[in-house]
């Protein structure tokens, strides 16, 4: 076959597809893909609306013209497709190179929508509808790339249902039969099992460093004091409100993201989602660090130079190393703000690069980063951190360049000598031979002797947080616990600082994001180790060192869900359902009356004897034929008699007595055995 003939054969219109269900399913899945793209911000609402309307119109047009395909229409659609591709390449050529997926995804969604909508006008055959079904996958994929929360799940479920119906209808059309609900259910069940299995087995996705990291700003307003700490003015539910004159800003009720960190009081934290983080590992999302402890609050002391310096260049901002550990492995985190946030750039460990779509970023000498603009919901930025994760042995033998004297003084300075605290710290760490061992010993002691609670009255003005916590209350919240550890370490001459930010949050294995809520706000201690820089220690809680696997997370969630199931009502409901199911099955299996049972037995006997019972044939006639084919021996019941009794009971209104019914059933079974013997004899003869 020549190439031309092959091309012609490949493009020849297939036989018209008449299945309306398949057509509706194909249009449904494509429409869902378009709607999902719109929901994820890849398509405008009006564009999506027009596309869905055009898709419906095209589908109806195709259905009406399915038996009369128009070759010229294919040509027109091809031209339209070429124009769409040309538009797409024009759009991405304007963007920041093809490595910028964010710039490509929008035009890609428009291109796929355009192709699918135009294709909808020429889907005469099953093959064309299969293309529509497959094409909806690409739309869903584009939408999925932007989906950050479980709000995408309804789209996925509806799309899977559409695909199941569509593929089932396609098979039904192929074999000229009606699709079976049982097959669809089994197929759907296996599909769900395979999907869940793949999800459990596959490693969590990671961002390739060859791609440009996402960043965008929403609701950005240039701040009056660019390097000052401010928010955008959230509502009463927080998480942010404008910075007060003293520089205090609250997020979700947390008072830590401010100029000073007051440890005397802490509000009740809400459960608002603050942001989501896509990261290669869980860690503390650091916002600020404090060096100056005054007995009740942490402050950031002013240095000899300007406190905040503008980071030169643009996105990505390269940050000058602030610690000797500016090596280590890359750790990429992308933050997706769900609520208006303060102008703090959260990051893990030592930030090295920040992808942030603004003119300027500001950084202080301790590595804290602030933006010059506010950030609204939908803002995205990416931070590449350098993470040094030395083991216990490495930390125990840590050596290298230490802090310079001024910094050493800054991070070991105390407002007063704390003799009782120092004595306690020395006693606890008496047997510790390294800094790391000292820290761990103090952490262990605090774990044994203190208790976490936010339900305590504010500290009296002038009272020392550490003295109150360690020697009076021995209960408190993370700021007090971490401050106590920091002060005890400083009494031992170990450089420490207080850090505030968020704990990793809840890992969602579907979205592969950490959902960070306001209640995840936290304070912890950072200890200086020569050669390794600032290392975080959390005396309040332990944090896992690696990403939890999806399997472990889902298993844990499932176990938790199982524990919450009310066992007794569930068992009762399951029992009732099982009984109903059993009754239905029994009712279907058992003929309604003894007469019907006798008739069924005789029909089985006739089939076994090779006498095909005819549709309109009466039972009596069948009995006569059975007797002719299987003459009863002496003493054996005649099939015609059984049939007559059954007919009399069924149609003559003569009720059978139980003994009579049992005797007739035995007789019918005897006829059945006779037929079986005859069949065996026939088979033996052959």
């Amino acid at each position, binding site marked *: 076959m020549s190439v031309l003939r092959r091309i012609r054969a490949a493009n020849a219109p297939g036989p018209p597809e008449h299945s309306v269900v398949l057509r509706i399913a194909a249009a449904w899945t494509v429409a869902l893909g378009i709607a999902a793209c719109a929901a994820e911000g890849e398509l405008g609402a009006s564009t999506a609306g027009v596309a869905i309307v055009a898709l419906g119109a095209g589908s109806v047009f195709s259905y009406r013209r399915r038996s009369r395909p128009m070759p010229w229409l294919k040509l027109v659609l091809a031209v339209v497709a070429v124009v769409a591709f040309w538009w797409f390449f024009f759009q991405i050529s304007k963007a920041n190179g093809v490595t910028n*997926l964010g710039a490509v995804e929008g035009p890609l969604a428009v291109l796929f929508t355009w192709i699918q909508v135009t294709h909808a006008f020429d889907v005469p055959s099953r093959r064309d509808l299969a293309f529509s079904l497959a094409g909806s*996958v690409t739309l*869903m*994929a584009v939408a*999925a*790339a*932007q*989906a950050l929360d479980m709000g*995408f799940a309804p789209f*996925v479920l509806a799309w*899977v249902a559409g*695909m199941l119906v569509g*593929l*089932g209808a*396609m*098979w*039904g059309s*192929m*074999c*000229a*039969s009606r*699709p*079976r609900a049982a*097959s*669809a259910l*089994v*197929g759907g069940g*296996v*599909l*769900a*099992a*395979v*999907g*869940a299995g*793949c*999800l459990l087995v*596959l*490693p*969590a*996705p*990671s*961002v*390739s460093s*060859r*791609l440009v990291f996402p960043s965008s700003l929403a609701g950005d307003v240039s701040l009056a004091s660019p390097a000052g700490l401010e928010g955008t003015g959230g509502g009463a539910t927080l998480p942010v409100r404008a910075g007060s004159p003293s520089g205090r800003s609250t997020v979700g009720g947390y008072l830590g993201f401010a100029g000073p960190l007051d440890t005397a009081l802490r509000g009740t934290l809400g459960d608002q989602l603050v942001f989501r983080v*896509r990261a290669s590992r869980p860690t503390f999302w650091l916002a600020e660090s404090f060096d100056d402890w005054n007995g009740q609050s942490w402050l950031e002391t002013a240095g000899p130079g300007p406190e905040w310096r503008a980071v030169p260049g643009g996105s990505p901002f390269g940050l000058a190393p602030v610690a000797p550990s500016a090596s280590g492995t890359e750790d990429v985190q*992308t933050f997706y703000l769900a609520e208006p946030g303060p102008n703090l750039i959260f990051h893990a460990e030592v930030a090295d690069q920040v992808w942030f779509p603004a003119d300027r970023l500001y950084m202080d000498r301790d590595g804290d980063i602030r933006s010059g603009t506010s950030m609204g919901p939908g803002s995205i930025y990416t931070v590449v951190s350098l993470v040094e994760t030395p083991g216990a042995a490495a930390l125990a033998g840590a050596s290298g360049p230490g802090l310079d004297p001024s910094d050493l003084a800054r991070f070991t300075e105390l407002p007063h000598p704390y003799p009782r605290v120092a004595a306690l710290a020395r006693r606890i760490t008496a047997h510790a031979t390294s800094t790391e061992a000292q820290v761990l010993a103090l952490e262990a002691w605090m774990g044994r002797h203190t208790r976490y609670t936010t339900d305590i009255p504010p500290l009296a003005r002038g009272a020392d947080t550490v003295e109150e916590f360690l020697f009076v209350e021995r209960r408190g919240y993370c700021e007090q616990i971490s401050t106590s550890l920091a002060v005890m370490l400083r009494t031992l001459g170990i450089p420490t600082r207080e850090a505030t930010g968020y704990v990793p949050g809840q890992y*969602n*294995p*579907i*979205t*592969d*994001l950490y959902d960070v809520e306001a209640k995840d706000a936290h304070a912890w201690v950072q200890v200086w180790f020569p050669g390794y820089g600032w290392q975080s220690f959390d005396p309040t809680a332990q944090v896992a060192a690696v990403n939890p696997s999806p399997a472990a997370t889902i298993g844990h969630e499932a176990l938790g869900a199982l524990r919450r199931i009310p066992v007794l009502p569930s068992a009762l409901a399951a029992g009732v359902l099982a009984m109903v199911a059993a009754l239905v099955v029994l009712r279907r299996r058992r003929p309604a009356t003894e007469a019907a049972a006798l008739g069924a037995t005789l029909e089985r006997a006739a089939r076994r004897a*090779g006498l095909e019972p005819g549709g309109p044939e009466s039972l009596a006639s069948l009995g006569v034929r059975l007797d002719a084919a299987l003459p009863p021996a002496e003493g054996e019941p005649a099939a015609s008699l059984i049939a007559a009794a059954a007919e009399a009971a069924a149609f003559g209104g003569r009720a059978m007595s139980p003994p009579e019914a049992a005797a007739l059933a035995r007789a019918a079974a005897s006829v059945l055995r006779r037929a079986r013997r005859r069949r065996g004899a026939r088979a033996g003869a052959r």
Partner: protein
Amino acid sequence: MSRRGGGPRPTRAGGPFAGSVLALSLWALVAHNSGSGWVQALGCLLAGFVVVGLFGPALAVSRLRVTVESNPSEGTEGLGVRVVLGISAPGAVRGRPPCGGPTVTGEGDLELQVVPDRRGAIEHLELDVSSASPFGLLWWHKTVRVALPRPLWVAPTPGAPDAAFVSSGTPRGGLEVARHRDGALGEPRGVRPYAAGDPRRLVHWPATAHRGELMVREAERPDAAVPHLRVALLDDGPAGDAAARRALGTLLELLGRSSPVMVSTLERDGPRTEPVYGPADARRRMARAVAATGR
């Protein structure tokens, strides 16, 4: 009743399997490096679709049961006959040699055309049963051997008559044509019930009217010499089929000249020497004829 003729096997599976593996690998690569959990989750669901679509038909076809509900008792080699199949689930069925034919799809009762490619009795059909359930992405098939409710007797196609046999009766190639006198042929001696294959001209209409069923005349003795064709097939293979074709051609030629023709054949139940009155009867006799070695 169907019987397994080997496990299910995919039909032209290279493309679908390779395409699926390639597509899913690319998807996994993109999903993993994009860092998007939803893309990966969607890929997992796609993997589910692919697994069910590619391997589900294997289960479906292994559970598929096919029976022959009815079939004609007679056919001719090379010509299609229609049998009614019962198929337990949606699928496609096609006859395999020696009874090949076009594919039919559906479920329940299906009419399948099979084309026997040789003469003789057919008691089983080899069927190619396939399914792409539940998604229609890939066909899997298996071969089953299905018993026919009754034997299908396949007549040969008429071969070229041998003029020499017809004119001279010289024995050659297993055929013998002779002038025959037999009490069963000749003057009418009575009537008997019609039997399938009796020529229409033997119908005795008054007796038929009297008895209420078709009756045909029986001859008492020949009024003239009746040709007698003795068919002795050498084997039940191709050579025997060729001889049967030639015998049928000769028989039809003889019938065209004078009827009836006495035919001697060997059948499964033994030798049979009976007059043949018409082409249908002739075909039937040649379908049932067997070689002596094949008894």
